[in-house]
Structures are given as C-alpha cells and as structure tokens.
C-alpha cells in the first residue's frame, strides 16, 4: 500500500496519508478510488469550474507492476459537460510513475493564483510557474516540459482548449495519449493547472515479490503464445472500421446514416499502407495498439499518434472525411489543441448538419461548412478551442448548443446526459443502445461493448440484452480499478483468471475475481448516486437516447429501416433497472445500496429528495 497525496492549489500545500486497506477492499483502486474520493471530497452542488471541485488521479494496485497492460491511470472530477460524475482513463507511462513516487491516488483541489505546473519528485511536491507553456499546444507543452524538468519526468498536460474551459477539453500525455472524455481537461484549466510532472525512484511494495514476478513472467509468455498475438498489433483499432460498416453501425454524417461509402479510405489497411510510422504502446504492453503516423494533406503535414478507431469514426465517417490522411490531420489538430476527438468530431458534425438545414448561417459561423471538407473541420476545432465566434456556443457541447439553436436540433444532438455519443451507432443493436444510455458518464462505449452480443443473439430482440450489458458494466471497469489495460483480454482473449490470481500476490488481499466484480458493482452504484446527488431531478429521463435514434429510421445501408422506438427503449430501461434492483425511475434502491455497504449513500439521496 502506498499513500494518497492531497494537493491544495490555493494554499500551495501537499499532504499525504497512508492508503487504508478498507479503501482498497471496498473500491480496489483506480476508478473505484476516483468514485469514492469524489463522493467524499466534492461538496454537494459544487460548480465544476470552481475551486471546490476536486480532480482525482488514481493508478491501480497493479499499475507499474510486472504484468501485461499495467500502465493505465484513471482521472475524474465533477464533469462540466454533464454536471454529474465524470471520469476518463489514459495509458502511456504516467500511472507507473505515480506508483514509483509512492502514491495510490492524487487529489487536487483549490485554484492556483497563476498558471502552474505541479512537480512531484518522489516525496517533494513543488508548484512551478507555467507562464512559458500556458497557451501552447498540449504536444508542444509536453516537449518543452520534458526539456525543462528532464526526460525521466512523466508529464500530463492540457492544451489551449482546457485553459479556455471548453467542456470537452482533454488531458494529454506521452505525445498522443489522452484522458479524453467528460471535460476533465477543462477542470484542470479552471484551476490554472497546466500540467502535472511526476518522477518516482522507489520500488512498489509487493506482498509476495518472488511469486508475483514468476506469475508476471508467465502472463507475458502466455500473451506471446496467444493465437491472436501476431495478428492484431500491426493493424490496431482502425482494423475494425470495415466491419463496423458491414454491420451498419458506423457513425456517418452526424449519425444520420450508419454506413460510410468511403470507409475503405479510412480503414486499418489505409492507415498501415499510407501513413503508419511505427506501433506505439504503453507501459508493460505486449500488444501495442497505438499507431504513430505521418500524414500529408493539402493543409500541411502532421505527425500524430493515431488515428484510433474512435477518431476515425467521429472525425472520419461522422463528418464524411474519406481519406485517412485528412482524418489524421484533424486528429493532430485536436491533439495539439487538447480537445477530445470523440466529442470534437460529434460537435463539428452537429454544426455541419445545422448549417445544412439553415439553422446556422454563414454569417454566424464565419464561413461555409460542408460534409467531407477538412477545412470546415479544422476551422471549427480552432474556433472551439479559443471559444471565438461560433466556437463559444459549440464549446458548450451539443446538448447546450442545440437548446440555444433550437429548430428541432435537439433531436440530432447526439448525446446522453450531456456527453457526446462515441463511435458506434446503435439503431440495430439494442444491447449497444442500452450500453450508451446507461453508461454512468454519458454516451460512452467503454463500459459495455455489446454489439457482437446483439449479432449473436438477434439484432431485433430485446430479451437478455440489459442483462448482458450489466455483466459487462462490471467486468470492463474492473480493469479501470486495477489500473490495467483490458485489451489483452478483449483483443487476444487473455484469461480473466490471470488478473485475479495476480491481485493477492501483489496486495496481500485474498480477493477472487468475484470479489473484484463486487467492488465494481459497488463503484457503479456509487457513481450513479453521485450524479443523482449533483444533478437535480436525475433518473430515467437522463437515460434516453437522442430523438434521432427513437424516431428516424436508418435511411440506407445494412441497417436500413431500423430504429428503436420509445416503447422499446422504455422496455429495455425497465429490464435494466429491475435487474440492477434500482427504482423504476432509475435510482439505486436503498436495499441494493445497503447490500453493497453504501447505506450512507441512500441517506444522502433521500436528503436530496429522491425516494429510494
């Protein structure tokens, strides 16, 4: 066990307390710690951009340890995009470095008097002037900070978008990795926090070091011999582009269509043949998913880590860009500005559709917008990052923008809870639809990726779908709590049991995989409750998908004619809440909360006026 580092930017102070075993047993680490610390430390009703909001950064008990995928860190805060629980995850090398400095979590509250870099060098925490990097791009800032402090510091930084409080600003690290969603970057910006630099020279205390090392070596060898090992790395996540189109789930033109004619120009083969420089991975990874690329377009040449599948979906099909070079260019622009490519692509597509329908004029925008036009995309991203002109409204995200623009645009503001929908359209995939609707941070795919379940069990049936989603919503975030990447399990079928047997060797706590899932369920209920506490009137109404998905039939392609009308959405939600033992309005029931040891949460929800 390490320590929890608490930083106060207003007071310029830093304290540590030992991580309690109880916290680890109840919440494991990573995402679990983020959930619990936010619940405890963020005062009810806090404005996400005020000094009272708290940023939590948490690696997991297995981060930095010798086993595959041990490089992930979880970050969270009350989200400026949704007003509720927000978190995001990122790879690279930040997580292990935090562990080597001796910390299981870092909390940051308050607001610095001027732009600041928090420097964590083992036990020494100092507050450095960020004057020379404030205003600079995220990639450029990382390079400058590494030069200033040393190559052996791991840097996490925001770009201009975060500094300007854009609601989908991200945190960047390792020249191309991001904690992208829910606007965590904007929360850092509101605290005048430009970057955190960490260096750690300690060894991580391990309960049974000899056995853990042997198990770790066994796990690596196990990965090397998995039959998927050689096949998936060269292609990376872009390889799934053709398949998603084939099954009619590819976001196209602001999710109006679900098959993109030009998909072969932006698939894995195009990436590999035309722009890839090298594979790039995170700490401890045997199967690097990252693809570092060099792309040339009419607007210039860029080097960028990516584009990943999500970026290809949202900044490719969704804005109708059919050349991988152009998607990579847009990716690089977003990365340097410090903007989430998922929300970014979604917001830009929304703006283009509004322009097409005459709801935004050329005068309001400052130029003409069009589908398949890289210039339109880049123009909007830059305006958004600076909150200039039309960028001011768009920087609020599609939910708020559509409320102001009106004219029926709320139906095609593709979001849930205020977070823009990511890379899988779901009118012909009910389980995936439920996944997006019930994901705790808003419309994100990572908690439960369920499209093949829909394909296997019937894409038009609703039965059993909610069940499967709930199961995945416990398994997948367990990795976020352990501080690990799940791609070795997800992509090459590396067995979950391995992670379960590693946990006791490292922590000395004899948990089974079932115990870990239990902690995951506890975290799930807690994050739902946090959103309920912070967002008045939270519940079922916040779980609906956009009007487009309930009312417009897919016009063309493999999913032509498909739509999931409101009655079916309601049936899916009823199923989901009933199985989770939540109320009909979608709040965790008292009996469920007490079963998970969260009775105090039920008390808080009742105080907030909910009946549980």
């Amino acid at each position, binding site marked *: 066990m390490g320590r929890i580092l608490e930083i106060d930017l207003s007071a310029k102070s830093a304290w540590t307390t030992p991580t309690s075993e109880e916290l680890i047993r109840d919440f494991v680490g990573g995402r679990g710690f983020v959930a619990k610390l936010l619940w405890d430390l963020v005062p009810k009703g806090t404005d996400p951009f005020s000094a009272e909001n708290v940023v939590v950064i948490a690696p997991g008990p297995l981060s930095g340890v010798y086993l595959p995928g041990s490089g992930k860190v979880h970050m969270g805060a009350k989200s400026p995009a949704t007003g509720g629980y927000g978190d995001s995850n990122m790879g690279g090398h930040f997580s292990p470095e935090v562990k080597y400095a001796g910390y299981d979590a870092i909390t940051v509250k308050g607001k610095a008097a001027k732009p600041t870099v928090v420097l964590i060098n083992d036990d020494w925490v100092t507050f450095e002037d960020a004057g020379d990097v404030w205003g600079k791009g995220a990639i450029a800032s990382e390079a400058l900070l590494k030069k200033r402090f040393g190559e052996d510091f791991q840097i996490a930084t925001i770009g201009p978008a975060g500094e300007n409080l854009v609601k989908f600003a991200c945190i960047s690290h390792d020249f191309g990795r991001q904690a992208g969603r829910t606007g965590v970057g904007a929360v850092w910006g509101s605290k005048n926090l430009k970057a955190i630099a960490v260096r750690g020279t300690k060894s991580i205390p391990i309960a049974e070091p000899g056995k853990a090392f042997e198990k770790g070596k066994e796990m690596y*060898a196990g990965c090397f011999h998995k039959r998927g090992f050689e096949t998936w790395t060269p292609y990376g996540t872009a390889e799934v582009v053709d398949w998603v189109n084939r099954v009619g789930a590819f976001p196209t033109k602001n999710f109006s269509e679900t098959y993109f004619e030009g998909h072969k120009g932006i698939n894995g083969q195009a990436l590999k043949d035309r722009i890839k*420089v090298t594979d790039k991975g995170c700490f401890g990874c045997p199967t690097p998913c990252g693809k570092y690329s060099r792309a040339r377009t009419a607007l210039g040449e860029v*080097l960028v880590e990516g584009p990943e599948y999500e970026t290809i979906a949202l900044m490719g099909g969704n804005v109708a860009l059919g050349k991988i070079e152009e998607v990579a260019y847009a990716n690089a622009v977003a990365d340097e500005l410090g903007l989430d490519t998922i929300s970014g692509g979604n917001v830009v597509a929304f703006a283009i559709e509004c322009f097409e329908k005459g709801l935004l004029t050329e005068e309001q925008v400052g130029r003409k917008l069009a589908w398949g036009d890289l210039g339109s995309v880049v123009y909007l991203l830059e305006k958004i990052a600076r909150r200039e002109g039309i960028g001011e409204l768009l920087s609020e995200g599609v939910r708020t923008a559509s409320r102001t623009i009106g004219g029926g645009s709320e139906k095609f503001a593709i979001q849930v809870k205020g977070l823009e929908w990511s890379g899988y359209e779901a009118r012909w995939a009910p389980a995936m639809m439920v996944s997006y609707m019930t994901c705790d941070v808003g419309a994100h795919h990572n908690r439960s990726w369920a499209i093949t379940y829909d394909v296997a069990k019937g894409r038009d049936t609703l039965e059993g779908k909610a069940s499967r989603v709930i199961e995945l919503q416990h398994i997948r975030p367990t990795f976020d709590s352990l501080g690990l990447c799940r791609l070795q399990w997800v992509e090459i079928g590396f067995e979950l049991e391995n992670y379960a047997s590693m946990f006791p060797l490292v922590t000395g706590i004899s948990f089974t995989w079932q115990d870990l899932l239990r902690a995951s369920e506890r975290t799930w209920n807690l994050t739902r409750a946090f959103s309920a506490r912070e967002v008045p009137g939270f519940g079922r109404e916040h779980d609906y998908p956009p009007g487009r998905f309930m009312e417009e039939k897919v016009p063309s392609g493999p999913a032509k004619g498909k739509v999931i009308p409101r009655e079916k959405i309601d049936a899916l939600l009823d199923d989901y809440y009933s199985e989770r033992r939540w109320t009909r309005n979608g709040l965790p029931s008292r009996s469920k909360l007490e079963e998970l040891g969260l009775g105090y949460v039920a008390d808080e929800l009742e105080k907030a006026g909910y009946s549980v």
Partner: protein
Amino acid sequence: MCLLTCALTNFGLNNPRYGGLEIVPHFPSPGTYEVKVCQRCGACKDACPTGAIKEQPDGSYRVEVDECLGCDSCVDACPEKVLRLIPGKNVAFICVSCGECVKYCPREALVDGDGEVKRA
C-alpha cells in the same frame, strides 16, 4: 518491459529506472525509439578510480561490490548511458548478459550475443 525485467531479475526492484538498458524516445518527431545496451566498450573500467571494474573472460565488465565507492564516475562515462547506481547498496551495476530482457521483449527488438531471440 526489458527495463523492468532487468531491475526485478537482478535486484528485485519494481522500478524500470534501475534496468541496465537505456530507451531513448524521439517524439513528437520522428516518432521512433532507440534502445541502447552495453557494448562492452570498457569506458567504465577506464573511468573507475579504484579499479573496482574488471574485464571478464567473456569480454563483459563486472563491478567488485566491495571496492565500489558509488562515485558515479562509471555511470557518467558510459557512452550508452546504461550503467545504474543501485539505491540502498550504492553500488554500480553493469549488464551481466543474463538475457532475460531478450526473452521478454514482446517485439523481439533485442537480440542476444549470438544475434538471436529466445522468446519466453
């Protein structure tokens, strides 16, 4: 993983900074990594003020633990930057050619003295 494999194998330390290799990233441009390993050049031996570093029959160099002052001269002199001062013991470590790094590199980017990769 080569660094952490080395640090754990040779010292039981769970921190890759103590591994006897050096990885040099070149980002954002051109986007490549260099891996440096001991080339058995002998610069460490030449720099050592106490003669604690001795050439072995197989051409590698080894530190006499009792004679090492922990002065960092060898660490600074190494052109590959792969020598490490081990915390706690305050003794320099030079790659002992155990080959574990080669076994665990997932990309087979390292080769052993015979130019081969023996994967785990």
